């Protein structure tokens, strides 16, 4: 029953083992083939894929930001330059606990909590991985030293040298050249990410903004080999960046200084341009601000002060200040009257001191309540007689008035290359219907004739219209850039010139404007007195607060800020105009008394050159 005791059979055992060995040998071969197949799959079939993976691992493309183009005035005085500056950068990926590192920076440099919040904001902006983000600009020697000493506590923090925009003339060109500032979140979304990789600043206003594309240049790049920790080992390929184009402006540094000085600290705007070419020679909006503050990031407090100041230093009065043009519009209205034939140079209107519409008791007053008696065109302009222009406007009608004012550029953007220009407002029947759902009233035409009412214009528009008077209707858009990268700017869509039925009309109006300056009864005869050249000018006042019917404008009653704005336009020499000027002095009250002398100083500055007694600020003026 019991099974037989099996003896050890070595031969049998060996045979058994050998058969098993053969099996395993086969298995070894099979598995080896699996390995070879796997390697074949990875190295031959998927070669492209893995090859790309490995290359992408190794090669990183780093942007080389271009150098921003420089900005000069018409004579080569530098207005915007690039200055080497040291800034503190942090690379989030290398910093680890970056918030703690930021706190450490604040501690080391003895900054405050506000800086920390600013740092945090900058670091959290969307950036490419491993891209250092600048958080603090314009490091002082002392700060650089402090960072160096504490480097071991600040992983990922580096002091980087790069070029930062600098405006050597400070406040003088803040409203024309503008400034660059850090690219913000919104701009980042709209920008060409490739073109702006490595660039931290972008033009925010002025020429810097308008010519951003030209000034920026073309980004270069370098392919660098990096290791697994992102450290750059060597440069494989380098494509240099292309610097931005340099821009020569039409502005004249010295005339700008003259204009600024002429305003003598009053709030106001001065625009001067070359009538024939549209070149803007001076563009002053006072008070101004230091654009350098914005380049490196202005502090909340400093910005708040600028923004909330009652003097509105950030407000560009030349481009965005909207004022009723007042009597300065009268020469243009006169041109309209002559060309439509409702008046002739010699036709006269009797001024009893007011004007009344037929069948209406409302009295439209002349500024001279006594009246000027019989007034012809020349006297009407020289005396700035309101009654004459009420009558003229009434005869013209709103449609004609609108048509001619439109051809002088009112109610539209006139400049070729300025950023943020306001269109102003030139009312019409259609406009009023759309805006107020009301018909146009004849009374509104009257006050429009003396530049009051709905009409609003910018100092730039006034200067441009003055230029049109000087060139006898030749339209050239005012512009700030003379050449961009050596190429003169051109107007792609030129405006048609103003053609009058008789070009003598221009002279008739010019004579009137000359009488303003040089005539016996001219409103600005005191300013024109003793001038070595003839000036054609026109004064104006723009009401800030409307005066009630029957009430007299009493300067003592009116608060300083509610006083009328003083306006003045002029071109000279009258027979061969080389410069046209528009001046606006806020709350200056008297166009001929306050604004005209300013205009005269600017004309002198351009036509006579800087004289010895006009001590123009030296060009090496530094910003505060």
């Amino acid at each position, binding site marked *: 029953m019991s099974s037989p005791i*099996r003896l*050890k*059979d*070595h031969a*049998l*055992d*060996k045979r*058994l*083992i*050998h058969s*098993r*060995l053969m099996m*395993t*040998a086969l298995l*070894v*071969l099979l*598995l*080896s083939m*699996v*390995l*070879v197949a*796997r*390697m*074949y799959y*990875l*190295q*031959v079939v*998927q*070669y492209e*894929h*893995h*090859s790309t*993976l*490995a*290359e992408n*691992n*190794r090669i990183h493309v780093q942007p080389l930001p271009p150098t921003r183009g420089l900005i000069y005035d018409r004579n080569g005085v530098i207005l915007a330059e690039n200055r080497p500056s040291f800034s503190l950068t942090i690379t989030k990926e290398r910093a680890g606990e970056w918030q703690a590192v930021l706190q450490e920076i604040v501690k080391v440099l003895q900054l405050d909590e506000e800086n920390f919040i600013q740092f945090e904001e900058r670091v959290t902006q969307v950036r490419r991985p491993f891209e250092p983000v600048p958080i603090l600009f314009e490091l002082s020697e002392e700060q650089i030293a402090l960072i160096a000493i504490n480097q071991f506590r600040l992983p990922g923090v580096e002091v980087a040298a790069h070029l930062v925009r600098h405006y050597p003339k400070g406040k003088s060109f803040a409203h024309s050249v503008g400034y660059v500032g850090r690219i913000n979140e919104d701009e980042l979304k709209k920008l060409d990410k490739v073109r702006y990789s490595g660039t931290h600043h972008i033009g925010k206003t002025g020429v810097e903004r308008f010519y951003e594309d030209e000034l920026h240049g073309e980004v270069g790049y370098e392919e660098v*080999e*990096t*290791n*697994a*920790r992102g450290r750059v*080992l060597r440069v494989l390929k380098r494509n240099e960046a292309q610097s931005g184009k340099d821009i020569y402006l039409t502005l004249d540094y010295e005339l700008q200084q003259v204009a600024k000085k002429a305003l003598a600290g009053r709030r106001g705007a001065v625009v001067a341009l070359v009538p024939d070419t549209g070149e803007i020679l001076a563009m002053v909006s006072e008070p101004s601000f230091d654009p350098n503050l914005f380049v490196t990031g202005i502090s909340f407090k400093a910005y708040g002060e600028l923004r909330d100041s009652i003097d509105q230093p950030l407000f560009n009065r030349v481009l965005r200040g909207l004022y009723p043009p007042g009597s300065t519009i009268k020469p243009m209205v006169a041109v309209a009257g002559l060309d439509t034939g409702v008046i002739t140079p010699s036709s006269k209107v009797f001024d009893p001191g007011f004007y009344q519409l037929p069948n209406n008791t409302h009295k439209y007053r002349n500024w001279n309540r006594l009246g000027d008696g019989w007034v012809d065109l020349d006297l009407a302009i020289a005396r700035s007689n309101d009654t004459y222009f009420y009558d003229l406007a009434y005869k013209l009608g709103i449609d004609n008035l609108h048509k001619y004012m439109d051809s002088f550029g009112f109610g539209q953007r006139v400049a070729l290359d300025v950023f943020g220009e306001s269109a102003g407002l030139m009312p019409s029947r259609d406009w009023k219907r759309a805006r107020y759902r009301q018909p146009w009233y004849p009374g509104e035409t009257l006050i429009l004739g003396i530049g009051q009412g709905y009409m609003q214009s910018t100092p730039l528009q006034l200067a441009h219209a003055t230029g049109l008077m000087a060139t006898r209707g030749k339209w050239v858009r005012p512009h700030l850039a003379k050449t961009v990268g050596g190429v003169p700017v051109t107007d792609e869509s030129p405006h048609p010139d103003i053609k009058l039925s008789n070009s003598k009309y221009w002279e008739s109006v010019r004579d009137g404007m000359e009488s303003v300056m040089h005539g016996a009864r001219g409103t600005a005869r005191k300013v024109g007195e003793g001038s070595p050249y003839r000036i054609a000018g026109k004064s104006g006042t723009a009401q800030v607060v409307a005066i009630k019917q029957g009430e007299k404008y009493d300067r003592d009653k009116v608060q300083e800020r509610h006083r009328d704005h003083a306006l003045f336009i002029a071109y000279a020499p009258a027979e061969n105009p080389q410069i046209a000027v528009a001046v606006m002095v806020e709350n200056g009250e008297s166009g001929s008394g306050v604004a005209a002398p300013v205009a005269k100083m600017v004309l002198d500055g351009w036509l006579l050159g800087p004289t010895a007694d006009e001590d123009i600020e030296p060009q090496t003026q530094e910003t505060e």
Partner: protein
Amino acid sequence: MQKKFDALLDSGDVTRRRVSLLQRVHLDGWLLLLILLIGSVGFFILYSAGSKSEALLIKQASSFAVGLFVMAVIAQLEPRLMARWAAGLYIIGFGLLVVVEVMGHSAMGATRWINIPGVMRFQPSELMKLFMPLAVAWYLVRHNLPPTFKHIVVSLLLIVLPCALIARQPDLGTSLLVAASGLFVLFLSGLRWRWIIAAIAAAVPAGIVTWLFFLRSYQRQRVMTFLSPESDPLGSGWNIIQSKAAIGSGGTTGKGWLAGTQSHLDFLPESHTDFIIAVLAEEFGLVGVCLLLLCYLLLIARAFIITLQAQTVFNKLLAGSITLTFFIYVFVNIGMVSGLLPVVGVPLPFISFGGTSLVTLLSGFGILMAIHTHRKWISYA
């Protein structure tokens, strides 16, 4: 007497094998040649993988020298002695594993070493790679083959207990190799197919249970990462993605020696130890990998021949297990680096940097040489 013996030798009844110098010192020429060949290839790869560090090469070379010395010493031992010591060695090895478990030296999150200050630091689990097949073979040859159920159970216990201890260290790779060395003995001894099928059938539920209750989270992570490395490209999947990129970007002929970007720019982790095959694949391409694999297969083929020519069952089982375990090293290492298998710490034999595994491997080949060179050639016609 002497004359009588000489006459007997000359009689033709006895063949006397011509014995070479190598055989006299109990070394096998083929094995030695192939080991040295693979080893020298390894030095080139290591030089590249270790960022041209000469110190690394010197360290590896001295380990190699020690390993060759140990191999030579073991080759002098009679396999009979090994069989006699098998039980004792196994008990010592197991005891040391318990010591590690109780008071081992930790490094890099794992407790694998016994530290004798000033003298040495070693891993008992490495010893077990050799003691395991010795012990199982010794146990099985005491009885008739194929093993009965009882013997299988005892063998499995012999295998599982130390493996469990090693896996707990945790050292999944070594545990796997030790288990393989024991199981190969069992398989070669003629383990019946029904048991094998039954074991596989049982392995599935056992695997699930192990997954749920025994695997450490990092081990589970490894398996999960293996299944989809792209799911965590910067974390646990990084290694495998980078090693695949290294291998794949090598293409057919490779980027050239010292020109592998993945390893030289530190994208490839552990490039001089477990992942060194990726360096070779990147720099020498598919051709290089196939040539290396050919060398390994030649070495394995020679070991197979030795196994076939071994004269006792014990020797056959031992030699066969050592041979197959060696192949497991190669297969698991290349398999894991190329993303076929989970990443378990198994070095590439003779090429990966590391003294301990080198000495263990060479000791194994020492046993093979001993088995081959201590054969008896006197037979009576």
